[in-house]
Every structure is written in structure tokens, then in C-alpha cells.
């Protein structure tokens, strides 16, 4: 029987906490920016699109370093947040969640944007003629019809968060019980002598978690797809 050691339980708990926080925290922003990119016309749209996609093409270490410079205790934004609100991202799990959120953000936005672009604008127009204002149209038509894509985006971002390593270790280092998520823990044991067996166990744990995530994603996507097409439940 595969039982988890305290170290593994801790890493698993942290990974889940960090990933859930990262996705939940970035979701509203992700949907808002995806909607802007899909529907709005404004100057600087291409630039915004580029900035959103940047973490996808930059080395994660570079992203982590940029976070350290801007969001660290003495960073431009981080310092202000600490002084005004007493919030800090430096070397704690919240920082790990922020790193994961930034790294997975392009994946979230891409999936949501695509699904919003697929929503029939004719149906939105019809809703408007029935008395629904722009917000009502968004919440009763656009958002529900984009749900399959939003779900896909959530899963993608969640999976990417689970595997996040480079930006995390650069920004918040590898602190047991605070920032040592599964990939970070795996890296730590590979660096210590005689950690091969432990590394393998952590590796298997990661694979199992990833497979489980993908499996759930697949089932969810199928169900949503059917619902949004107005077809009866199978």
C-alpha cells in the first residue's frame, strides 16, 4: 500500500493549496482580460495581448526574477503592498501562488478568450432586445455559454500550477512547509545524496495527480459541452 510520508503529505498539501489559490485568484482577472481581448476594441490591445502571453515564452526563471524585483518585500509593488496593506508575497506560500498564477495566466486567458469568441453574438443581441443590459447579457449569456472553455482554462491553469517550478524557486525559494511544493520538493531530494527512492515516490505522486486532473477535466468538459448546446443530458 502506498502511504505518504509527512514530507510528501506536506508537499501535496502545499501544491494543492498553491494551485487552487493561484487559479481562484487569477480567474476573475483572466475572464475580464479574455473578454476584453475577445470583444472590446481599444488602443494597445495588441500590447496587452503580448504582455498576457509573455510568461508563456519567457524562461520561468526570468518571470520569477521579475516577480522578485517587483513583488518582493523591497520591490516596487511589493513594498507598497507591504507598507499599505501589510500583505507580503516574499518567501511564503502566497508568493508561490502568485508565481503559479502569473505563469499559468496565458493558458487561462487563451482558453477563455477562445470560448468567448465562440459565443454567438446574435444570441447576445437577442438577449439585449429582450431587456438585458450589458452586465445581464454577460452573466446570463456570455459567461454560461463560455463555461466549457472556462472550465478547460481552469484545468489547464491548475495543471500548469501543479508543475510550476522555475518561477517559484526563483521568487520564493524552497522553504519546507511554506514554498516546497511537489516539484520543488522533488528537486530538493534529487540534490541530496541517497534521495533516489524518495525522488521516485514524489515523481509517481506527481504523475498520479496530473492524470487525475486530466481525467476530471475530460468528464467535466463533456458534460458542459452537452448542456451548452441545449441538448438533453445523456
Amino acid at each position, binding site marked *: 500500500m502506498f502511504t505518504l510520508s509527512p514530507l510528501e503529505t506536506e508537499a501535496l498539501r502545499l501544491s494543492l493549496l498553491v494551485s487552487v489559490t493561484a487559479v481562484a485568484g487569477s480567474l476573475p482577472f483572466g475572464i475580464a482580460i479574455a473578454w476584453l481581448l475577445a470583444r472590446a476594441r481599444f488602443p494597445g490591445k495588441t500590447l496587452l495581448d503580448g504582455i498576457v502571453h509573455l510568461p508563456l515564452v519567457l524562461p520561468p526563471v526570468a518571470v520569477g526574477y521579475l516577480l522578485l524585483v517587483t513583488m518582493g518585500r523591497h520591490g516596487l509593488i511589493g513594498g507598497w503592498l507591504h507598507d499599505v496593506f501589510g500583505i507580503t508575497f516574499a518567501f511564503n506560500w502566497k508568493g508561490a501562488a502568485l508565481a503559479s498564477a502569473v505563469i499559468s495566466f496565458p493558458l487561462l486567458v487563451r482558453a477563455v478568450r477562445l470560448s468567448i469568441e465562440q459565443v*454567438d453574438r*446574435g*444570441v447576445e*443581441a*437577442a*438577449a*439585449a*432586445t*429582450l*431587456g*438585458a*443590459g*450589458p452586465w*445581464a*447579457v454577460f452573466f*446570463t*449569456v456570455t459567461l*454560461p*455559454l463560455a463555461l466549457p472553455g472556462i472550465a478547460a482554462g481552469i484545468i489547464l491553469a491548475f495543471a500548469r500550477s501543479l508543475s510550476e517550478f522555475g518561477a517559484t524557486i526563483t521568487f520564493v525559494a524552497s522553504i519546507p512547509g511554506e514554498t516546497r511544493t511537489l516539484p520543488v520538493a522533488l528537486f530538493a531530494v534529487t540534490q541530496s545524496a541517497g534521495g533516489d527512492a524518495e525522488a521516485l515516490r514524489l515523481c509517481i505522486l506527481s504523475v498520479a495527480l496530473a492524470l487525475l486532473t486530466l481525467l476530471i477535466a475530460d468528464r467535466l468538459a463533456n458534460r458542459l459541452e452537452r*448542456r*451548452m*448546446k*441545449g*441538448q*438533453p443530458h445523456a
Partner: protein
Amino acid sequence: MLDISLQKRQGDFILDLSFRAAGPEVTALFGRSGSGKSSLVRLLAGLDRPDAGHIRLNGATLFDSGAGTDLPAHNRRIGLVFQDSRLLPHYSVRGNLLYGFKRTPESDRFVTLDEVAGLLGLEKLLDRRVGALSGGEKQRVAIGRALLASPRLLLMDEPLAALDGARKAELLDYIARLAAHFRLPILYVSHAPEEILRVAGRMVLIDDGRVLAEGPVEQVMSRADFAAAAGSRTLVTILTAVVEGHDSARQTSRLAWDGRHIDVPRLDLAAGSTVRARIPADHVILSLGPVEGLSVRNQVPGRVLSLTPAGPLMDVAVDVGVPLHAELTPDACRELGLEPGKAVTALIKSAAIDAAEVSLRPDDISAG
């Protein structure tokens, strides 16, 4: 009372039209595709913004470029039924029907779900998901949904274009009933004259973004520019008449109007029904008096109203209670000595007359 004057440039196309539609009746908007009908509908509904002009409805200003008024679509209370029903796929039939109803203040509502479901035959569909509906059912839900938002004006943009013949006839009946039942002005956009003949009392003819003519359907459809817009060279006469009775031996039905009558191939309609008959001008023959020994069944006496050159031919209008158009060569006109006031007999082949029941109430028919 709807009062529209709108200008909008879309690329090379310029829409510039003004017209008024009075009262709770069906007004048809006719034009070939690309004439600007659908653009006008979007401007009226508030889905697009005109460059200039105004839209007034029952004294309320919905849009006025001069005053800077531009009511957004969701505040206009103008219902819109699209060609493709555009139902909300994630709602049930009931959910679709109630979508606008819930957003309408109670004091503005003029109809209930039960009433609409009964009128449109939707009772058994209420709990269905919309993906499982047929095309005709979808359009009925779309109409019901628009009605339940209690609109001040209902726009219908070719609502039957995607349906087959039997469904069309059925829905036309529903539509004609709506205007009368709810005292609701309906603007019915179509490029199908047979639909307009069934439901509309008045019509606006538009072409290339402009209004060419407006008035009673019978008058507008008898115009040369209507024939051109409908893709035909031949003028038609629209005759609104009542089915007087049937002759089963001769397989004909008798249509009566204004003390006159003609026989047409037997119609499957009860005596007393109102019909509109289309008589193409090239199937009307004029003689100076009754003729015997002819196969033509209908001989209607009248007097010449006017002679108008129409290309190489002459359009002769004969007063037979309504102006009846006949197409003659100038030579024939000379030979018969036709001039305004001259008594003639119009000979009309029964088989050339195309009559269909009118779905609107007889008193909504403004001319004939």
C-alpha cells in the same frame, strides 16, 4: 405611431430612409436582399447606431442625433424576431419565454406566459430544451419570447425564411392574429410577396437603402418599381375580395368585390373568407364589349383610367372598382381607341389568377 428618419453609411452602402407607420397593424417592409432591410431592423432595435436621424415611437424618442438621445437596445422595448431564432441554448423553452418577461416591469406587461403559450401552441413544449425543437417550434418560441417582453413595437426580420410551406402558412396565421389581439404594431420584413399579401395591410418598399413607396399593400404591389424590386417586368393587380361561394360542378370559386365578381380555380376556403388575388397584367385582355365564344371565363366591365408607357408596351389601368392593370401593345391601344373614360371589358383567364387567403382582419385592409 412609428416615425423614422435614419441615415447610416456602411462602406459604399448608404442607408437613408424615412417613413411612418401608424397604428397596431402589420406593416411590411419589402426589398430585395441587400436593399437595407436588415440594417434598418438593427438600427431600430438599437443594435447598431445610425449616423444621423431620429426614431420616435408613440411619442417617445428612442434615438435623435440632434438631441444626443440614444436609448440602448435593452431599454427600447422593441421586440425582435430573427430569421434564425437565436434562442438561448442553455435555457429551456420556458426559460427562453420568461427571459424578457422577468426583465419587464410589472406595470408594462400586457401578456402572461399562459396566454402566449396558448396562442402559439407551446404548452407541451415548455419543459423541453431548445436544441430538441424543430425549426417551426423554434420560431414560435422566438415570437413568444419577444411578446412576453411586452414590446411597444415588434420587428420580424424574415421570420419564416428558414421554414417550409406548411409551417409558413401556420405561422403567418399566428402573426396576423398577434397584431390584432395585442393591438401591437408589427414591422414585418420580407422579400416574399405572398407572405406580405397574407399578413400586411400596409407596406414600405425599399431599394438601395431608400424608400421607393409606401401605402396600402394593394397600391404598392401594383407599382412598376415593386415589380422591378420583385424581379419581374410585369405589373400585377392585387384584388382584395370575398369568397362568395363554390361551384363544385365547374371546380371554381367565385370572388366578389364592389358588386363585381370573377371565377377562379376552386379554393379550399369557406364562403365569406377574405382573399387577395394576384392578377398579372399580361394575362388581362381588353375588348370594347362582352365577347362570346371564348374560353376566358371572366369578363369584367370597367372604364379606362389611364394609359402609361411601360417600356415597349402600354400599361392600361381600368377601373373595375379597383385599378386593374392590363399590358397592351401601343398598336392595340390605338386600334381600340383607348383613352381615359372609355368603356371596356376586361377578360381575365381564371387559371392566371393566384388567390390566397388573407390572415389579417378584413377591416385592417385599407384599400381594395
